[in-house]
C-alpha cells in the first residue's frame, strides 16, 4: 500500500505538469481541445493525489508500523479518531494533508467553473497546477510519508524493520479541537490559491466587468472564515489544554496564521471599493497575492523550524525550496502586474476624507500595518541572524504595544465606516448618523469612569465597543422601521425580511457585532489575576473573590495514562460555586505529561485552575481569574454565523444567473 501511495503521488505530479503545459499551450494557441485535455488531466491529478491520501489513511488504520510515519505517530491502542488525526500529527503526513486539500479544492474549482469562465479557466488551471505540483514534489522527494523503516546492521547492510507497536500520538494532540484544527487551518491557508489563481487569470486575459471580482470575493470570504475558525480553535486548545492561562501568546506558529487572516480581511473590505467605485485595482491584486504568499509562508514557518530553534535554518532542507517558490510567485505576479498597469487604471479618485472610500483605505492601511508588525516581530530573529550573526527575538510586549492601538483604531473604523456615505458626506448627514451612537458611547464612558475604571486602553476599548454596538443597533432598527412603515409589518417580521433581503450588508454587520464582543473579551485581559497556592488537603487559598479548598487528592489510572486529580471546592464571596477537578496526566508512551484545566466560566469571568505538581508536602495549584473571556468565544461564534449568512445568499442569488450562460 505504501508503494501504491508513492505511485499515486508520482502519477499526480506527472499529470499536474502535463495539465500545466496543456493549459498554457491550449490558451496561447487558442485550441479548445488542448485546454480541455489539460482540464481533464488536472482533475485526474487531483484524483490521484486524493488516492495517495487514502493510501496513508489505510496504512494508519491497518497499523502498518513498517511505515515510518505510522510508527512514529500512531499505536495499536489509539482510538480510531486519533488514528485518523495521527496522519497530521507529524510532519510528513501533514504535508500530505496539504496536498489532499489542494487537490480537492483544485478539482472543485475546475468542475464548478470550467463552463462559466471559459476564457479564464486555462490560466486558473495553470496556477492551481503549479501550486499542486510544488507540494507534490515536496511530498514525494523531501518529506515522504510513505518512507519505510529499515534496520541498519553494523556492517552497513539494511533490512526492513517492523516494530511491534508504534510510538503513539503526542497526548497533547489528543483533544477534539486538535483533530479538526489542523485540517481547517490548512484549508484556510491553501484555499487562498483559488482567489489568487482567478486574479492572475483575470490579469492575463484582461477581464472587463466584475464577474471575476465576485468569484474571487466569495472564495476569499469562505476561506477567510475557515482560517478564522482555525485560529479560534487553536486559541481554545491553547486555553484548555496547554494550561498556561491564556489563549494567545504571539508564538511564531500563531503569528503565521494571523498574517494571512489580517491581509485577507483588508482585501474583503477593499474589494468593495473596487466593486462600487472602480478604485484600488492594483492594490487589490497585491492583497490577493500577499494573502496567498502568506499562506505559503505560514506553512514554511511552521514546517521549516526557521524561527523556533536556534540555527534551525541550516538543517532544514525544506525551507530553501519554500523560499525559491515564494520568490518565483512574487516575481512572476509583480511582472504581470507591471505589464497590465494600463488595464488596471483607477476609474475615480478619492474625493473626500469624509467618505466611505477613505474609511476603507484607513482600514486597509491599519490592517496591513498590523500584518507588517507581526511579520517583523516573527522574522526578526531570522533577519538579525542573517545580518548580524546573532538571533535577537522580541517578546509579546512588542506585539501588544503595536497591535493594541491598531485594534482600537480598527474598532473605531468599524463604527464609522458603515455610517458614512460613498463619495462624500455632508456635515448634516454626519450629525444625523452619529448623534445617537456617539451619545451612547459617551454615556458608556461616563459609566466606566464613575465605576472606577482607570486603565487607558481598556476604557477606550469598552467605550468604542459601546459606540460600535450602538451604530449596529441603529442600522438594524432604522432599516426595520422603514419596512414597518412601508409594508405595515410587525417589528420581528420587518427585521427578519430586512436581514434576509440584503444578507451581504446585514451579515457584515453581524460579523462586526461578533468582533465587538471579541474586543470586550480582549479588554478583560488587562484585569487577569493569578495566584500560586501551595495547599495540603483541607487547606484553603484565595484568588480574587474566590476561596479554593483542596478537598481531596486522588490518583488512579485510565487506559492510556495515570492521573493525579485535585478536587477543589470553590466558594465565591462565601457562597458555594461548585467543584473543580484539575488533573495532571502521565501517559504510558514516552512519559509525556498533560494538563487538564479546571474551568468555571461565567459571562463576568473565568476561574481557571491548574494542578501543577507536588512541591515538598504540599500540592501546587495555579489559579487564574480571567475576566470576560466568555465574550471572546461568544463573539467568535457570532462572527461565524454572520459570515455564513453572508455566504449563503450569494449562492442562491448568483448561481442560477451565471449557469444560464
Amino acid at each position, binding site marked *: 500500500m505504501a508503494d501504491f501511495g508513492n505511485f499515486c503521488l508520482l502519477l499526480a505530479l506527472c499529470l499536474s505538469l502535463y495539465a500545466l503545459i496543456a493549459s498554457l499551450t491550449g490558451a496561447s494557441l487558442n485550441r479548445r481541445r488542448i485546454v480541455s485535455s489539460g482540464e481533464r488531466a488536472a482533475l485526474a491529478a487531483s484524483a490521484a493525489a486524493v488516492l495517495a491520501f487514502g493510501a496513508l489513511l489505510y496504512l494508519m488504520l491497518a497499523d502498518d508500523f513498517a511505515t515510518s510515519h505510522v510508527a512514529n505517530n500512531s499505536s495499536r491502542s489509539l482510538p480510531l479518531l486519533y488514528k485518523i488525526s495521527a496522519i497530521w500529527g507529524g510532519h510528513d503526513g501533514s504535508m500530505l494533508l496539504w496536498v489532499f486539500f489542494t487537490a480537492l479544492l483544485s478539482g472543485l474549482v475546475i468542475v464548478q467553473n470550467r463552463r462559466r469562465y471559459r476564457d479564464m479557466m486555462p490560466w486558473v488551471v495553470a496556477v492551481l497546477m503549479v501550486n499542486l505540483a510544488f507540494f507534490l514534489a515536496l511530498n514525494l522527494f523531501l518529506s515522504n510519508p510513505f518512507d519505510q523503516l529499515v534496520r541498519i546492521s553494523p556492517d552497513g547492510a*539494511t533490512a526492513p524493520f517492523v516494530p511491534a507497536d508504534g510510538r503513539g500520538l*503526542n497526548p497533547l494532540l489528543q483533544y477534539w479541537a486538535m483533530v479538526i484544527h489542523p485540517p481547517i487551518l490548512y484549508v484556510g491557508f491553501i484555499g487562498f490559491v483559488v482567489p489568487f489563481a482567478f486574479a492572475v487569470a483575470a490579469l492575463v486575459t484582461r477581464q472587463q466587468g466584475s464577474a471575476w471580482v465576485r468569484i474571487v470575493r466569495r472564495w476569499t470570504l469562505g476561506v477567510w472564515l475557515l482560517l478564522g475558525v482555525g485560529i479560534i480553535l487553536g486559541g481554545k486548545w491553547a486555553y484548555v489544554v496547554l494550561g498556561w*492561562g491564556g489563549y494567545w501568546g504571539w508564538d511564531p506558529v500563531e503569528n503565521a496564521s494571523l498574517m494571512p487572516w489580517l491581509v485577507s480581511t483588508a482585501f474583503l473590505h477593499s474589494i468593495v471599493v473596487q466593486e462600487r467605485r472602480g478604485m484600488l485595482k492594483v492594490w487589490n491584486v497585491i492583497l490577493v497575492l500577499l494573502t496567498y504568499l502568506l499562506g505559503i509562508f505560514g506553512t514554511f514557518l511552521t514546517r521549516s523550524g526557521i524561527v*523556533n530553534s536556534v540555527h534551525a535554518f541550516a538543517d532544514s532542507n525544506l525551507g530553501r525550496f519554500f523560499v525559491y517558490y515564494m520568490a518565483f510567485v512574487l516575481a512572476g505576479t509583480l511582472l504581470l502586474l507591471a505589464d497590465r498597469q494600463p488595464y488596471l487604471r483607477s476609474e475615480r479618485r478619492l474625493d473626500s476624507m469624509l467618505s466611505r472610500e477613505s474609511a476603507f483605505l484607513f482600514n486597509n492601511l491599519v490592517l496591513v500595518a498590523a500584518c507588517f508588525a507581526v511579520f517583523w516581530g516573527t522574522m526578526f530573529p531570522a533577519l538579525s541572524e542573517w545580518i548580524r550573526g546573532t538571533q535577537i527575538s522580541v*517578546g509579546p*510586549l512588542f506585539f501588544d504595544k503595536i497591535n493594541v492601538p491598531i485594534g482600537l483604531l480598527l474598532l473605531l473604523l468599524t463604527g464609522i465606516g458603515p455610517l458614512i456615505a460613498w463619495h462624500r458626506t455632508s456635515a448634516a448627514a454626519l450629525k444625523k448618523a452619529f448623534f445617537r451612537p456617539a451619545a451612547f458611547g459617551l454615556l458608556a464612558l461616563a459609566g466606566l469612569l464613575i465605576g472606577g475604571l482607570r486603565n487607558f486602553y481598556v476604557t477606550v476599548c469598552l467605550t468604542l465597543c459601546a459606540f460600535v454596538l450602538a451604530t449596529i443597533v441603529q442600522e438594524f432598527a432604522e432599516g426595520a422601521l422603514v419596512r414597518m412603515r412601508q409594508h405595515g409589518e410587525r417589528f420581528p417580521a420587518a427585521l427578519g425580511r430586512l436581514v434576509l433581503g440584503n444578507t451581504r450588508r446585514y451579515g457584515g454587520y453581524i460579523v462586526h457585532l461578533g468582533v465587538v464582543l471579541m474586543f470586550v473579551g480582549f479588554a478583560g485581559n488587562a484585569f487577569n489575576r493569578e495566584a500560586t497556592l501551595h495547599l495540603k488537603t483541607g487547606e484553603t487559598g484565595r484568588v480574587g473573590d474566590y476561596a479554593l479548598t483542596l478537598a481531596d487528592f486522588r490518583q488512579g489510572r485510565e487506559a492510556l495514562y495515570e492521573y493525579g486529580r485535585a478536587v477543589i471546592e470553590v466558594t465565591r464571596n462565601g457562597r458555594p460555586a461548585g467543584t473543580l477537578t484539575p488533573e495532571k496526566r502521565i501517559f504510558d508512551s514516552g512519559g509525556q505529561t498533560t494538563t487538564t484545566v479546571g474551568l468555571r466560566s461565567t459571562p463576568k469571568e473565568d476561574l481557571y485552575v491548574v494542578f501543577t505538581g507536588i512541591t515538598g508536602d504540599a500540592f501546587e495549584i495555579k489559579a487564574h481569574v480571567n475576566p470576560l473571556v466568555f465574550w471572546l468565544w461568544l463573539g467568535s461564534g457570532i462572527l461565524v454565523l454572520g459570515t455564513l449568512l453572508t455566504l449563503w445568499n450569494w449562492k442562491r442569488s448568483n448561481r442560477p444567473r451565471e449557469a444560464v450562460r
Partner: protein
Amino acid sequence: MGAGKKFWVGGLIIVAALGWLGFVGFQESKAYYITVDEFSSLRGEYAGKRLKLAGDVVEGSIDRSRPQMEFVISSPRSSIRVRYTGADIIPDTFTDGSKALVEGTVAPDGVFEARRIEAKCASKYEAEYDERTS
C-alpha cells in the same frame, strides 16, 4: 489639499506613531537568542542583557523541592544551572532530556534566572526512530 494627499498625510502619521511604539516595544522586549555553548564562550559580552538560552534539559537535574524550581541545561560542550522565577506554569513538554528555551538574565551568583520557559513545541513532535529510517 486634495483628499488623496490628506489620506497619505494621515496615513504617514499613523504609521510613524506605530513605528515609534514598535521601536519602544522592541527595546523593552528584545532578547539575544543563543545556545549554552555560545553563552559560555562569550560570557562577558552578554552580562546584564536579556537572553534566550537554548539547550537540552540534563536528565535527572530537575529539582522541584525548592520554592523555585532549578535545573541544568546543556549544549554539547557546556552547561548552566537555571532557576525558574516566572509566574507562568511550566509547559508539559518540559521534561528530562527535552529541548528547552529559557528567557531571562544571569543572576549575581552565576545561576541563570529564567522568567519564561518554552519546551519543544507539540507541532514538531517527531520521535527517535529517525536513525533507523531509510
